[in-house]
């Protein structure tokens, strides 16, 4: 079946502009995660959605970052007033929920802030 998809695959933006990154999770998965991965670094947790519960935003690095998940499916990560340090690969993952916790990742969006 279809895996997690993300768009765009690459995004180049000027410092100070806003960007929106989209994630389409695997159909039926109740949990959705956003991570950031800088060059040669590990995964940095950003935000977690589980069903209709309030999201866990504890990983968001600043109030310039926000995310929403509409209808328990598609999610959008928004970065306002982008800075050069926001340049990274943004990865989305979904998980079946219930008694299954393994995460399935999308290909990522490579964001470059110039």
């Amino acid at each position: 079946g279809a895996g997690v998809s993300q768009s765009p695959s690459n995004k180049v933006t000027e410092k100070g502009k806003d960007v929106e990154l989209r994630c389409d999770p695997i159909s039926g998965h109740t949990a959705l995660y956003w991570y950031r991965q800088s060059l040669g670094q590990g995964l940095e947790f950003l935000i977690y959605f589980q069903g209709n519960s309030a999201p866990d935003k504890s990983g968001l690095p600043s109030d310039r970052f926000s995310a929403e998940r509409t209808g328990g499916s598609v999610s959008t990560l928004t970065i306002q007033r982008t800075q050069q340090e926001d340049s990274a690969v943004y990865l989305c993952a979904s998980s079946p929920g219930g008694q299954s916790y393994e995460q399935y990742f999308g290909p990522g969006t490579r964001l470059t802030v110039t």
Partner: protein
Amino acid sequence: QKEVEQDPGPLSVPEGAIVSLNCTYSNSAFQYFMWYRQYSRKGPELLMYTYSSGNKEDGRFTAQVDKSSKYISLFIRDSQPSDSATYLCATDNYGQNFVFGPGTRLSVLP
């Protein structure tokens, strides 16, 4: 102390070798253990997951968990150049606290 520790490598082995990749974790509440493979410029790909101590085998891959020593391993038999990637371990407490290791970069030389 980081919650999950992993030697970043790089680890280089000849084709056909047995590869051992290891992680340690500090939180005894972790119950679910995963290994991911990440090729350059790609998202992590789930290789194996388990929630019990002992071994789990899938083809050339064996995941081993020792909860008493908080140690998890991934063994790759008959390694191939196509196995060259970064391997990430991950642990979780029933979806409450998902933590990834920093990854080990593996190169299998033909």
